[in-house]
């Protein structure tokens, strides 16, 4: 038991350790007395009796030690332990408001000893409660007890008028919650305390941050738990005034950190940073990047701290880059982040998978912003246009639908690039050479620098090809670049969110009212081969596919 106690002591911190040294003798004595009493009778019956006796007079304070003992015997009989915990909770909840645990300078030596002894028991009791949190059945009840204790201790453990939050105890609780195998406990804690009370959130994330920084090796599971916890924090309080839900009574001072939104944010930010220092998996990174704008960034008082994280992600390539783009852009725009060769990097994102990615519309929204400036060099814009046109040759219809109106807008904004659609040979020699030799595409598809691709000298043959796309609407949209540019601009939002499914839905929603045109010739053969020697020729399908006609 002493060893258990010392374990707890290390957890509790320095101040407690000093106390322990002082009252060790006294406690040992009482321990001996307790054990004699509790060996007989059925324990369940004794617990209410013990509790009642404590209530009767200070003589029976030794019963507390007995109950603590019972509470610590979690492995043997969890029900008893819990019953003991309940009894202890009630006891302490009575003792604490009575001031029995407050150290006073003017108190007699005897009283001081009793107080110290009681405080030691309290520490023991805390340990028992925390241990109970990892029990599957009793965890939530234990949490309720623990939180009741936290509340009482904050108010009554010191004689100061303002409540003093028991940080160490709470840190233990948080650590236990994070490490606990019980998922429902965490959900319960999140919904009832973190979301319910602003101060609880504050202290929780403070504890989480210290937990993450002080532990040497946090296992992946805990990391995931912390990650999910942080990601679930999506309702950022708007201002300091919005902080009005307090578990413990609110502090009087206006300047108190609990009253300040900045401090609140800082706690979450610290927790995030601590987690990021530990490193995130790829999936987690994507999740963070995806939620960056909605749940992560708003908690950061200094978003610059995310700079490294974002630039790292952005440089990773692939879809992670796509996701990091908005964060990087935010920093560039708002925090004056200097990202060298931003457009080169952006250009490199336009790879073969880009138009097939599910983040396509998100990317296009950003791309529209990045290339929105009319002060960009036309060469650069042309490179982007040409590259996307190349990609469109292998793109799904939904992507083509988004690209072409965007091209239109760019052409309107950068008239120099319209040479890509209309280039008349100037000299006779040029014309003759074109007639005799044809021409190669001057565009260099493998050039990484968008300023060097020579796209401005190229033409958009790709889009002209897509004017004969199999889907009528796509073909119609592709035709806008060869019609007169009379429209001011297309609204991109109308074209971004399409997919095979939505296109199909649009087709199928059209009711068949008029009889459709039917092929006027009924083909002689569909699956069978024409008999040899006959004049009919096989269709492509029949010539390439074996329909078993030969067998």
């Amino acid at each position, binding site marked *: 038991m002493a060893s258990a106690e010392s374990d707890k002591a290390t957890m509790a911190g320095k101040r407690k350790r000093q106390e322990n040294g002082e009252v060790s003798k006294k406690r040992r004595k009482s321990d001996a007395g307790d054990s004699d009493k509790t060996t007989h009778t059925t324990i369940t019956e004794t617990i209410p009796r013990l509790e009642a006796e404590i209530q009767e007079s200070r003589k029976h304070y030794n019963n507390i030690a007995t109950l603590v003992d019972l509470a610590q015997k979690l492995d043997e009989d969890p029900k008893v332990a819990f019953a003991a915990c309940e009894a202890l909770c009630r006891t302490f909840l009575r003792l604490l408001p009575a001031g029995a645990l407050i150290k006073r300078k003017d108190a007699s030596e005897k009283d001081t000893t009793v107080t110290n002894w009681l405080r030691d028991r309290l520490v023991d009791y805390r340990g028992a409660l925390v241990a109970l949190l990892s029990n599957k059945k009793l965890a939530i009840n234990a949490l309720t007890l623990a939180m009741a204790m936290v509340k009482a201790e904050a108010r009554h453990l010191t004689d100061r008028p303002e409540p003093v939050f028991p940080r160490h105890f709470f840190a233990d609780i948080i650590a236990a919650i994070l490490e606990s195998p019980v998922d429902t406990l965490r959900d319960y804690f999140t919904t009832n305390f973190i979301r319910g009370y602003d101060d609880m959130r504050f202290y929780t994330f403070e504890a989480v941050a210290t937990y993450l920084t002080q532990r040497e090796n946090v296992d992946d599971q805990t990391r995931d738990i912390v990650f999910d916890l942080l990601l679930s924090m999506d309702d950022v309080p708007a201002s300091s005034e919005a902080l009005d839900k307090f578990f413990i009574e609110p502090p009087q001072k206006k300047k108190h950190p609990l009253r300040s939104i900045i401090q609140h944010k800082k706690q979450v930010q610290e927790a995030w940073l601590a987690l990021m220092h530990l490193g995130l998996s790829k999936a987690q990174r994507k999740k963070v990047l995806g939620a960056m704008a909605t749940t992560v960034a708003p908690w950061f008082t200094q978003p610059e701290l995310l700079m490294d994280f974002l630039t790292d992600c952005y440089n990773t390539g692939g879809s992670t880059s796509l996701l990091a783009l908005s964060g990087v852009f935010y920093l560039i725009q708002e925090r004056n982040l200097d990202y060298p060769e931003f457009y080169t990097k952006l250009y490199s994102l336009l790879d073969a998978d880009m138009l097939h990615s*599910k983040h396509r519309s998100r990317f296009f929204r950003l791309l529209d912003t990045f290339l929105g400036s009319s002060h960009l060099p036309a060469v650069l814009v042309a490179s982007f246009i040409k590259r996307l046109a190349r990609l469109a040759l292998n793109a799904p219809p939904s992507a083509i639908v988004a690209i072409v109106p965007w091209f239109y807008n760019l052409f309107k904004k950068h008239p120099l690039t319209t040479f890509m659609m*209309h280039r008349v040979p100037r000299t006779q020699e040029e014309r003759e050479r074109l007639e005799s030799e044809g021409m190669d595409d001057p565009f260099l598809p493998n050039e990484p620098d968008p300023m060097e691709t020579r796209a401005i000298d190229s033409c958009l043959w790709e889009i002209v090809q897509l004017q004969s796309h199999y889907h*009528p609407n796509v073909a119609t949209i592709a035709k806008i670049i060869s019609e*007169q540019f009379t429209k001011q601009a297309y609204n991109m939002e109308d074209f971004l969110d399409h997919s095979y499914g939505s296109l199909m839905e649009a087709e199928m929603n059209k009711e068949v009212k008029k009889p459709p045109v039917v092929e006027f010739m009924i083909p002689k*053969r569909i699956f069978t081969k024409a008999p040899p020697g006959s004049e009919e020729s096989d269709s492509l*399908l029949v010539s390439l596919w074996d329909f078993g006609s030969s067998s």
Partner: protein
Amino acid sequence: MAGSQLKRLKASLREQGIIGPQQSKKQKRKNAEQLRAQPDKRLQRHEALASIREQFNPFQFKTNARGPKFEVTTNKPVGDKAAMAIKGRPGLSKAKSEEKRRETLLVELQRRNKVGGLIDRRFGEDDPNLSLEDKMIERYTREQMRNHKKSSMFDLEDDDESAGRLTHMGKPLFDDEEEGDGAHDDFDEEDLPSGDESDTSRAERRRLKRLRLEEAAAEQEEEDGQPERKKTKKEIYDEIIAKSKLHRYERQAAKEEDNELRQELDKALPELQALLFQQRPKEPSKETGAPEPPLVIAGKDKATVDKEYDIEVKKLAADKRAQPAERTKTEEEKAKEEAERLKELEEKRLKRMRGEAVEESEEEESEEEKDEKKDDAHDPFQAEPEDEDEFGLGKGVKYRPTATELGLDDEDDFLIDDDLVASGSDLEFDSDDMESEESDDEASGSESGDDEDDEFVKGILSEAVTKDAVFRAPENRKGDDENGIPYTFPCPQSHDELLEAFKGVDVTKHPVAVQRVRALYHPKLDSRNKEKLGRFSEVLVQHVAYLGDRFESNWFPTLESLSRHIHSLAKSFPIEVAKAYRAHIQKITDDRPLGLTVGDLVILTAIGTTFPTSDHFHQVVTPAMLAIARYLGQKIPQALSDYATGAYLSILALQYQSFAKRYVPELMNFCLNTLCSLAPEKLPERPGFFPIHESVAGIRISGARDTAVRQLNCNDCLPQHSLSPADAASLKVAIVSTITAVLKSAAETWHGLSAFHETFTPAVTVLQHLATSPKSTSNLPSQLTTKLSSTATSLSHLLALSRLSRRALELHQHRPLAIRTFVPKFEDSFDPDKHYDPDRERAELARLRAEHKRERKGALRELRKDAKFLQRETLRIKKAKDEAYEKKFKRIIAEIQGEEGHAAKEYEREKAARKRKARRG
């Protein structure tokens, strides 16, 4: 000028020299002579008097209230009447209107409540300008003209000539009454050649007439001195009349002769007719209208027979068969017509391909909409908010942030697991039956298509004729032919019913059964059959998919034949068939977009042959093409069967686009991806911009050096879990071989496209890699390697060609649009009183309204004046009446008084006499 009005008048009269100091007789005479010498002096005098009258009547003119306008404000000439601000002459206009009323209103008033009367219509009776002689002359000419118009020159019957005869004192000028015959005209001249009525002799006649008159005149002159002048004249006339009578008789005789001849001809007409129109069937003599009496049927009188005859004729006229049938056409004409029809159909197809509106086609509406929208887009100043559905893209993906974040939005994601394929086929079986319940409410009123002479209809019709017994026989008699196929079937209205009906029939005989159903329920046999067959065609579509899912290798002729039956039915029931196909596509989309079954493949193939795939938009083909492309674009093949299905769909997509040559990006993606994945060795670098999926372990070809190259078949599309290595290798080689062929065919289809070079360069790279890399050559059969390299070569030829034919784009050869001007339009001569309403309609309306108001006021004013006039007149009449009455009354009183006074005097006298008598007495 001072003095009274009278003095002023005198003065001004004196000034004008109208009155003056009294003149002596001598002077007066002299003046009168002068006046006679120059008559305008009288006019002068008149004018002077008028001006004086004007001067002394200030109310004669209506003027501006504030006097004449200043010269500055008007540009009208100064001396003008208007400039003098005379706006009207109230006195004059009043007098005029009074006069007019007296002429019209007063007459009406006087004629009120009176019935009848005489209207004098004699010419010029009320015209004072005409002298009596003129009037009479005019009247005479009119009368003459009237008569002249009435009678025609050759009207023999018109003998009443008295109207046109000149009279004197009520007696005719030429006294010939005693002859008792009014007939008397120029033809009656004795010297006229008889029997000649021709016009050619008219001039001759005239000449003769002239001669004759001269003769008569000479005779007259000769006999001038003789006493019996009158008699001789009469004799002359007698002669003339006698001759004319003779002449007339002769003419009558000639006419009769002619008539006889004509009747003779009429009699001979039937024979003549028969000679003229030999092919026309000889009609009964009754109908020829011959003069002989119609055959009277016993028991019926002639009237009823005639009536019946009329009815019959009418019936015959109404009969369709009586209409002239079209001439039987020669073989050449038929061929020409057919060629023209085909040409027209082809033109329509091309139009649809270009997305133009085809009249009487279902695209019309949508195309018009599109056109309208395009027009909107053209108008730069019509900056209306962007129509979301301008391009008919639909609403797009609903925004689901959380779902996207959680990776549920699998639309464009490649991480789709494979179990869809397995589950899809199971789903198919259940949903197949469910489909039959839908679309019950369809209207089946589609026009039965043009009965083409395809073999189906032929078969049906001939069968219907041969199996006449079946139709006549009672339904319970069920005959089976030698194959065990019953002759009669119920018309299946759902797929379950069809399965039930076709239970005993071998699958390969289903086409025969279908043919029999179609024959039994041919729309011509019963009006309800149309609806039934419509449903049946839908069921047939389901059945094809059903059979496709359970296919056996010898079923494909059956499927083909069924598909062709559907095609032939689609001509009569296009909406039903299209709906059935669309329902199937919808089911694919909902249940298994990436797990197509063989049934789906068969259906997609059938769609491609039933409907024109070259159309710009087609209600069935477009969704089908989208479904194909979706599979090709999104499926990440996990098993060899996926590759095989994809290969089939690639061929199908290419076949769809073989005519319109539209580009299918997904096809390139799939083919290249397949080649890359199956290649024995990974490509050293990315060959192009198509997305590459990592190939599944064990999918690359290895050790297939000795495998024979075969064709793919539908069994390869079924998911097979345990393939022997040899089978797998054979399948892989078959896939690569097919894909290579597809690529080659695609290149041939699309070589005209503008970005052909960019599209197919990666293909060449991939093919060359497969054909030449050492690991490939060692692992692939040499036959395939040759095929690969030959394809690569032919592709590179095409690439070189396309490079040669490439030109810089010149897309914007448009006529420059005029920039709309915003300079305001100025009015040169602006008049503030005028309304410059730019809206013409509104301006017109305002003008009309003002006019109406003006007219209304005028009318009211006139009515008021009328009323006043009437009042005045009635008052005048009343006064006149009263006056007359008063006069009469007074006269009577005076008379009575006179009588009384006379009587009183008598009495007085009598009394005095008596008194005197008495005194005497």
